[in-house]
């Protein structure tokens, strides 16, 4: 899978556990808890979905490596033994305090 494929898969699992998030508005550096408002149960569901999709163990010590879409893609690439060209960072289109 390419990094873009991994990003799409990650966002698909992310929006499955938080259906009112719009994948198009999520930036690669958005933090799952701080920016996207995931709670602990959402996060457990996400880890379980990624485990199911990729067949990776994902131990608790690695959870910080899933903190943002960019970090997660890098982590999944590394765990799947794939090269990691950087993502073209997707910025949140409406980031800023004016929301």
């Amino acid at each position, binding site marked *: 899978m390419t990094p873009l494929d991994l990003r799409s898969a990650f966002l698909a699992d992310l929006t499955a556990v938080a259906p009112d998030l719009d994948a198009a508005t999520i930036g690669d550096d958005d933090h799952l808890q701080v920016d996207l408002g995931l709670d602990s149960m959402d996060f*457990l569901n996400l880890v379980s979905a990624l485990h199911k999709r990729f067949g990776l163990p994902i131990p608790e010590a690695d959870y910080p490596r899933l903190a943002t879409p960019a970090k997660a893609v890098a982590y999944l690439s590394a765990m799947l033994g794939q090269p990691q060209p950087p993502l073209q960072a997707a910025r949140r289109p409406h980031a800023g305090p004016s929301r």
Partner: protein
Amino acid sequence: MVRVDLWAWPLAQPAARLRRFRALLSADEVARADRFLRPSDRDGFVAGRGRLREILGGYLGRAPQAIGFRYNDFGRPEVDGAGDLAFNLSHSGGRAALAVSDGAQPGLDIEAIRPIEAAVARHHFSDREYGALMGLAGADWLAGFYRCWTRKEAVIKALGQGLSMDLKAFDVTLRGDEPARLQRLTGGQVRDWTLVHLAPGPGLIGALAVETRGRGLRIVPCAGWPGAVSPDVPGSSQGCGWRQARDGWGSHG
């Protein structure tokens, strides 16, 4: 004796109250609120922090906006200069819950009961917990899952660690017919801990964890808490905010 006061409030608040809460927040809290992508998360954060400041201000005899928070390595907020006062905040299903204690760090978790796949338990629960859970079925299974998870997260929060703690390093009870209890803790003594099952409201399950170290635990339901702490712990008519009982709190803080 360790005393823990339990408070609760809704995160959905009228616009005027949200504005009032927002005015109580520090600049970094306002910035953090505005980072949320979803307006409901932003407003929930403001309602959670604003009311937290009001309540803690009552204990400490300080203006809500004068309270300073510091954060441990895992992001758990603590109050600057609060003496023995310790607190822990949790929110789920549109409700916030707060535990305030005098001398032992409480760990509090509430969760709205929602469908969950068994794979989540397989991945995050210990073998002992998973085995006990799989002995349940239907609604008992779902309640058992949330009893287990809230107890585990309450312990993690009392220890001040995040989800990167090894979740299989300890076992908790989860069946409805046995009391909340820590059964195993790698590197610790289970007898030092008290776990309490909480009933924070309709559709919610909660747990409180306190490292009581042989001391008793007295729980007092305060404003917003729906009656009894849980079916096992009756409610109390005593008021909250025990500054009067512990004269000096806040004065040296």
